[in-house]
């Protein structure tokens, strides 16, 4: 049992981060906090991917004469890491768009608190 937890500590950490991020993105009222929650969520998934392909006692996936081609278990699978490079770029782009939206929102409504924001939006609708 203890091995089940300690042996997969990377995954447990990722799951913990994921829950934290999801909680922040859904439950927090402040838009910036929501955004932070979303970013934590995305980062958790990056950690999950990286943890899934990490290996003790293996080396970078570049041909090494000492190891040879046949012994593929000695190389780390590079694919999840490369995928995560793309995911990081996507995350940065999302963050950029989100911050731009937050700034526009603040300039128009002078608040970032969602409950106040919704009240002011409703007032606009009624006019």
């Amino acid at each position, binding site marked *: 049992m203890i091995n089940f937890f300690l042996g997969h500590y990377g995954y447990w950490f990722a799951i913990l981060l994921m829950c934290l991020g999801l909680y922040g993105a859904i439950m927090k009222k402040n838009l910036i906090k929501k955004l932070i929650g979303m970013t934590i*969520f*995305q980062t958790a998934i990056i950690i999950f*991917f990286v943890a899934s392909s990490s290996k003790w006692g293996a080396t970078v996936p570049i041909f090494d004469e000492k190891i040879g081609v046949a012994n593929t278990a000695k190389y780390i699978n590079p694919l999840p890491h490369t995928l995560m490079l793309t995911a990081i770029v*996507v995350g940065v782009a999302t963050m950029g768009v989100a911050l*731009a*939206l937050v700034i*526009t929102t603040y300039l128009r409504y002078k608040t970032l608190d969602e409950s106040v924001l919704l009240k002011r*939006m409703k007032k*606009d609708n009624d006019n």
Partner: protein
Amino acid sequence: MIIRNSAALIPLILLFTAVSIPIVALKKKQIAFFMVMIATSLSVIISFYNIFRVLKVGTIHYHFGGWIPPIGIEYVLDPLSSFICLVINVIALLVLIHSKKIIEMESNIKSVPYYALVLLMLTGFNGIVLTGDFFNLYVFLEICSLAMYGLISVGGKQAPVAAFRYLIMGAIGGSFYLLGVGFLYIKTGSLNMADVRSIIPHLYDEPTVIVAISLMVIGFGIKMAVFPLHGWLPDAYTYAPTTSSALIAPTGTKIGAYAMLRTLFFVFGVNYVSKTLHITDILAWLSAIGIIYGSIMAIAQKGMKRMLAYSSVSQIGYIGLGIGLCNPLGLIGAVLHVMNHAIMKACLFLVAGNYRVKLGHSNIFKLNDNIRKKMPWTTAAFTVAALSMIGIPPTLGFFSKWYLALGTIKNSSWIFLAVLLISSLLNAVYFFRVLEKVYLKPMSSNDLEEPNMSKNSKADEVSSSALIPVLILSVALIILGLLNTIIVKGIIEKMIPAGM
């Protein structure tokens, strides 16, 4: 050579034009519109070419850079993907023709970046539909979502808030999907859909695979706005500018539906998702709740765009229900409804836009029978689309509901049949509410007012660039409705996956 590469051409043309628009149209803003026209017309032509080629020679695989899958990325053109691709591009072309005058009137839209974003979004849509690779799908999903956030946020004063809430939901949805892909990759070691399809039957009992499916379905469900995950949709569609909502509403959610259909039936297998995991049952029940909920909420709205947004929630339910029924008739109904709803919603949102241009609002309670005289053609187009939405023959809306109803009868799921019928009645309620305002004179108005009325009610239609797309869409609803057997027999029946 170009013809041999036709599968990859559409996203490439759109992406290239999207990137070059800000540079080419730097000095002269009018060029942007013509570049968009050329790019979308080309993609419509290529989509037509693709669909005929697929029907002739069967599924086409295009390997990017000559790398053979599962190592390389491939594009797959089969009847389903080429059909959805065609629908997206035709709708986009018509909406963009309509946008010519509209964009100039919207004060806070800069046309050059706006058109660049539109093309980026279309790149994403076409990429999602054509790709045969799970991670490639994620990248395109995020490209089109990012473009969509931008397109929504340039609307009215509340638009950035709506776009932000959509962004949080959309990013979480995308992340859920990515997590699902991660689980799948851990088990299968492949990202290629066809390759995963051949590996997955050996792993049907693995909990990891079940978790992967669940996460992917949640992700697509958010993008598709299935009932409990639809929270972002009404605000986003309401506050977006006319062109954005007319572009996003018909196709944006269908992309999620397509991705769901592709993953569930073509990758994981029909029997597995329906008989073993019962995911399709859950989807069907949620969709059924969504259908009723969306229709009832639509009746309660006073703005036309908000009404149409809630009606989108309900229409997505039809597609989800068709997928969830998990039999050939339901699938035919779902795919036909993708096309049908795309045409109807584009038409209705464009009509709402035309009303906003001429009247300055699209509030249902402020409409009166003057509009019928002022804008006869726009109102006629609205009527046809509304009739199709309700499902009155010979419009296309009748036939997709007909196939869905046949599907429910085949499964003997009478509750779903009742849901379909009740929701048609509810559709009638919220569309006739508008038609009544537009076509019938209120009882109180007597003959004395007549001279006054006729004075300010001479024909004042919107410009032809805004009118022709609306008319084409509404005529298409009737013509395609009459031709529905050709479409169903010729294309849609070829889409039915093995084992259904």
